[in-house]
C-alpha cells in the first residue's frame, strides 16, 4: 500500500487532533443519565465523600433517606429497618466528639456478597451493592458479615411502598445509594438534603471519572475508609475522621 503525501498529511492531522482532544475533553457530559437501554458499566464507580468536620448534629440525611425510600418503622428501634444512621464518636480522654452518617459502604470486595448462599446479595457493575429480594431467603448471613452493621432485616409486613423502592417482609435491605435516582441522573436523597438543609458535608460522584469533583478532592485532600484494615476498598470515604 502506498500513501501519497496529501493522504499522509490528512491522517496525521486527524490523529494529532484526536490525541489533543482525548485528555480532559468530554464531547458528551458523563454525569448525564444513562439511557434506559444502556446497562450499568464497570467504567463507572459511584461513591460518596463525607466531610465529618462539616457534619452537624442534624438528622437531615437520615430523614431524607427514609422519606425517599419509604422506610418507616413501627416504633420498635431494635427491629425497625435502618438504611442510614448517625453515629457519635467521642474521645474518652479529651472529650472530643464527632458525628458521622453511616450506611452501606458499597465495598469493592463486599463480605455480604461473599457469604450470600443464593446470590441475592450482589455488586452491580458500577459498584453499587444491592439485594435481589426476588432471591433473598432472609437467612441474614449478610447482616452478620457486614462489618458496618449496614443491613437490616424486614421483620414485619410492609405497606405503602414507593413505586421505585419495593420492600417486603422476610428480606434483607440496606442503602441502595438511591440507585433509582442515580439511574435517572440524579444524586442520592441524603446528599441532596445535606447540601440543601444540612452542613454541605456530603458529595456524590463517579470515583473513576478523572474530571469529577469527588475524584479531584480525593486526590488533593486526605480521606480515609472506615475499617481500612479489612481492605474492602469502600466506595464511601470520610474526611476529618
Amino acid at each position, binding site marked *: 500500500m502506498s500513501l501519497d503525501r496529501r493522504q499522509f498529511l490528512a491522517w496525521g492531522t486527524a490523529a494529532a487532533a484526536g490525541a489533543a482532544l482525548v485528555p480532559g475533553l468530554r464531547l458528551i457530559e458523563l454525569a448525564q443519565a444513562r439511557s434506559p437501554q444502556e446497562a450499568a458499566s464497570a467504567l463507572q464507580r459511584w461513591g460518596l465523600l463525607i466531610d465529618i468536620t462539616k457534619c452537624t448534629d442534624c438528622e437531615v440525611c437520615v430523614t431524607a433517606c427514609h422519606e425517599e425510600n419509604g422506610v418507616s418503622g413501627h416504633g420498635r428501634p431494635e427491629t425497625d429497618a435502618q438504611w442510614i444512621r448517625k453515629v457519635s464518636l467521642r474521645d474518652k480522654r479529651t472529650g472530643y466528639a464527632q458525628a458521622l452518617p453511616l450506611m452501606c459502604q458499597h465495598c469493592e470486595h463486599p463480605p455480604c456478597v461473599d457469604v450470600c448462599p443464593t446470590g441475592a446479595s450482589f455488586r452491580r457493575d458500577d459498584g453499587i451493592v444491592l439485594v435481589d429480594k426476588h432471591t433473598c431467603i432472609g437467612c441474614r448471613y449478610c447482616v452478620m458479615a457486614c462489618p458496618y452493621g449496614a443491613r437490616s432485616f424486614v421483620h414485619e409486613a410492609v405497606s405503602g411502598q414507593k413505586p421505585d423502592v419495593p420492600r417486603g417482609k422476610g428480606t434483607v435491605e440496606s442503602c441502595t445509594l438511591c440507585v433509582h435516582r442515580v*439511574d435517572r441522573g440524579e444524586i442520592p436523597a441524603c446528599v441532596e438534603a445535606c447540601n440543601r438543609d444540612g452542613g454541605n458535608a456530603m458529595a456524590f460522584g463517579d470515583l473513576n471519572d478523572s474530571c469529577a469533583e469527588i475524584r479531584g478532592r480525593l486526590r488533593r485532600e486526605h480521606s480515609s475508609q472506615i475499617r481500612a484494615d479489612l481492605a474492602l476498598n469502600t466506595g464511601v470515604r470520610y474526611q476529618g475522621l
Partner: protein
Amino acid sequence: MMRFAAAVLAVVLSVAGIAGARETRASRVAMPVIKIENGEACVAPAEEMRRDHMTFLLHQRDRTLRQGLREPRFSLKNCVDCHASRETGSVLGQEGFCSSCHAYAAVSMDCFECHTPLRRSGAARARR
C-alpha cells in the same frame, strides 16, 4: 302409557337438573373482571400477554435489578399505571385487574408482597 310418561318425566327432570347445575356453578365461580382503564393498546397483543406476561416480567426484573436496564416496555410500574382501577387506584382487590384473574385461575402471585399495587401520581410517572 304410564311407563312412557315416567320416561318423559325422567328426561325432563334430568335436563332441568343439568341446566340448574350449570346455572349454580356459573354463579358460584367468580369470573375475572377485566376492566382496562387507561391506554388504547398494551405493549403486546392480548393473547401473548395472557400467556406470557409472567415470563416478560421475570426477565425484565433481572435486567432492571442486575444490569440497571430500566426499559419501560415490560416494566411492572407501567403495567400498574395502566391497569390499576380508577376507583381504588390499585391492581388488587375484588375487581383488581391482577387479583381477579389470579383468583379465577387459582395462581398466587408474589409481586405485590414487595411492590406497590398502587398507580403512581402523574408527576412521578413523568419522571419515568
